[in-house]
Structure formats: structure tokens, C-alpha cells
């Protein structure tokens, strides 16, 4: 497998640990995964595709190459997670924008969890 040596972080072969499990992706392989994810999402952005799961055909058509690269660098559960998260994040942003337009103010950063009896704050 010639391409393996040029891409040592390919997740295709997760390393087994001595106690019977698989070693989790390390920092470099995470970075590689995130990078290919960002490349794929940028391609989706360029083509106005939001949901790569629902609009799979469209995504394959425009960003097939990036999707393959994405799948190569990330575990399939991560790929599914990131694709779904993209939609959730988008909806969250839209809701926040809508709330802001309606005059809602964000909570200051670092606000503690409200405890019992702190309703008056």
C-alpha cells in the first residue's frame, strides 16, 4: 500500500492496544480529520448545500472528491456526526440571529449554573 506511507495518519488501520481495545485517534489524526472535514464543508458552502446526508446525491455530485477524503481521514461515526452537526449548528445560528433581531440579549460569558433560590438574579 504505497499511499499508506505518505499518509501515516490514515485511520483505516486503528492500532490495537495491548489490552484489547483500539487506540483512539491522536492529536495529529484528529487534526487531519478536521482539516478534511473543513475542506468538505467549504465545498458544500460553495455549492449551497446544507445537509450532506439529506442531499447526498447533490453533495456527491459537487463534492465527491472531498467527501471521499473526509471519509478516509475520519471514522465513519465521526463523519455522520459532523455532517449532522453542521445542520444543527446552522439552525442554531439562525435561531440566535432571529432572537437577536427580536431584541434578545445574550447572557454574559461565564455565567454560573442557576442554583436553587437564585431566580431573582
Amino acid at each position, binding site marked *: 500500500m504505497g499511499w499508506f506511507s505518505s499518509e501515516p495518519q490514515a485511520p483505516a488501520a486503528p492500532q490495537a492496544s495491548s489490552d484489547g*481495545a*483500539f487506540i483512539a485517534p491522536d492529536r495529529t489524526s484528529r487534526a487531519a480529520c478536521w482539516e478534511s472535514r473543513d475542506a468538505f464543508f467549504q465545498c458544500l458552502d460553495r455549492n449551497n448545500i446544507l445537509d450532506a446526508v439529506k442531499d447526498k446525491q447533490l453533495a456527491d455530485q459537487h463534492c465527491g472528491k472531498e467527501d471521499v477524503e473526509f471519509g478516509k481521514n475520519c471514522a465513519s*461515526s465521526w463523519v455522520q456526526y459532523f455532517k449532522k452537526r453542521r445542520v444543527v449548528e446552522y439552525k442554531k445560528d439562525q435561531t440566535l440571529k432571529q432572537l437577536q433581531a427580536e431584541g434578545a440579549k445574550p447572557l454574559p460569558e461565564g455565567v454560573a449554573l442557576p442554583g436553587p433560590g*437564585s431566580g431573582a438574579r
Partner: protein
Amino acid sequence: MSRTASVRWATASVVRTLRNELPTTRIASRAFQSKSAPSPCPHSASPQPLSQRTLPPAPRPQHLHLRDRHFSSTARSQKYKTVEQAESRYRSGPFSWAAGVLFLLSGAGLIVYFRYEKARMERKRIAEATKGIGKPKVGGSFKLVDQDGRPFADERLRGKYALVYFGFTHCPDICPEELDKMAIMIDKVKETSGNVMRPIFITCDPARDTPEVLKRYLREFHPDIIGLTGTWEDIKSVCKAYRVYFSTPADVKPGQDYLVDHSIYFYLMGKLRTSGTPGVNHPSWPPPGPIVESKGSRLHADPEGDFVEAIGRNFSPDQAARVINNHIKDWRGTLDKN
């Protein structure tokens, strides 16, 4: 004793008395002043000889009072060479630059103090509010295994604060981000408060997170982090104790690819049990025998060792470290600094 001397004495006494009376008596005071003003008051340089007190003027109703004032105000009367000086001191009123500065300084001091107290009370309130009655609401005993395969029970958390985070090593993005934040928090707390906090990572995914997997994963973040794993049942019960949402399936095949949903809070715990005699350092952790709790002490991070505060994702590492450092600062009991 001449007559003039006794008159002068009387004059000075009356002026002194008037000084302490209402402004309406000023006129009377001025009448005396015009008489005695030209010459410096002779008696003011030294206390009146005792013999003079027995001589006339004849006793008056205020006699006793005058005598008392005479002796108690000796130092003060020495400041003014003339009655005018004393008068002008009165005309200027009780305000002066010194008094103004003192007023402002004490005012500013009080504001600073009250702000500090308010922040402290707020932290205390959080620490108290998150504590249940009798039993802690968050946290509890557990028996797990650390990343070196050694048993690790909750007893080992004693003596220091603990920063507990739940996650799993195959976590796509949030756990690594949070663990990077945790590493910054660890260093910042260490820098400010010393080695008084144990960072703990408890996996929610025991099937995949064996000790070795945890070890290789955590060493990329911070060498201090203690990684804990265990059986599915053990992990489920510790997640329940910490109110962590736990969705890991019980039967996963080796190599299966899945994600785990979990709550993403840092739990600051204070398992700071004190022995019956506060201030005595514990020689070893865990101590061999049962520990006598100091109930009802002034310590407000609970000595039973429980939940202090949850720190969410909205906190930056700096803010989180500040919150932790402040709680540590509030703690009045002993802390294991080794």
C-alpha cells in the same frame, strides 16, 4: 495668689467651657475675649498648680465639671497660644483637608471590602446551594481503575479539590477541545493555588477506553490528568452519581464504531475531609481509619467532600481557573499540597 491671676483663670475656664457649648453662647465668649485677648493666656503654658484650685472663685454649679475639663484638656489647650486661635479653629468647623481625605479613603475602603464580601458570599451561596441536605446531590463513592490499571476509589480524592470531566477517547471534537481547556485550567490553578487539585477524566465508554487507550490519549493533554475506567456497570453508576447523561450501549463488539452522548461539564469537587482536630495534616491518603467529620464548622466547601460547582462550556479556561482559584481561596481548612 493675686486677684488678677484668679480672674484670668476663671476667664480661661469659661472660654474652655463655652467652646463645648452651643453657638448661641458665642457672644458671651466674645465678651471675654475682648478683655483677655491682648496678652497670651498665661496658664496655658503649664497646668494650673494644685493650690489654686482651693482658692476663690467661689464654687459654682459647674465647678466639678470645670475642674475635670481643666485636666483632661491640658494637651489640647496647649495647641492654641491665644483665644483667637481657639476661636478660629471653631469657626472653620469640624471639616478639614485631613478629615476629607480620611473620609474618602475609608469610603473607598468600605466599597472595596463590600464588593469582595459580596463576591465571596455569592461563591459561598453557590457552594451551599449545590449541596444537598445530608447527602450530596452530585458525586458519590466509586471504585474504578486508573490508566495504569491500578484500582482508584473515591477515597483517593481526599485532601485536594478535584476537577472531574466525563468524556470518551473516540470523541470527535468537543472532548478534545474541553481537555485542552482543562490543561490550561490545571496550569493556571497550579500557578495560583499550588498543587491542590486533581484533574480527573472519567470515561463514559468503558468498552473502548481501556487503561492503555486512556493513557495514550490523556498524555497528549496534560500529564497530571488521571484517567478512570471500569466495567460498564461501574461507569454507569458513577455517571448516575454525577448526574451525567449516559447512553453507552452495554454490549458493543470490539472495533465497533459508535459515538457516546454525555454531559459536558467540569465538576469541581471538594473532598476535603478534615479530621476531628482541624489544622492537623493527614499523614497519608487515604487515612487508615474512619475519619471524624467536623460538622458545623466554619468551612463552607463541604468537608464531607462533595460537589462545589459545575463549570460549563461557556467558560473560558481563564474564567474557569478564576472560579476554581476563588473557591480554593475561600477554603479555610487544610489542603494536601503534595
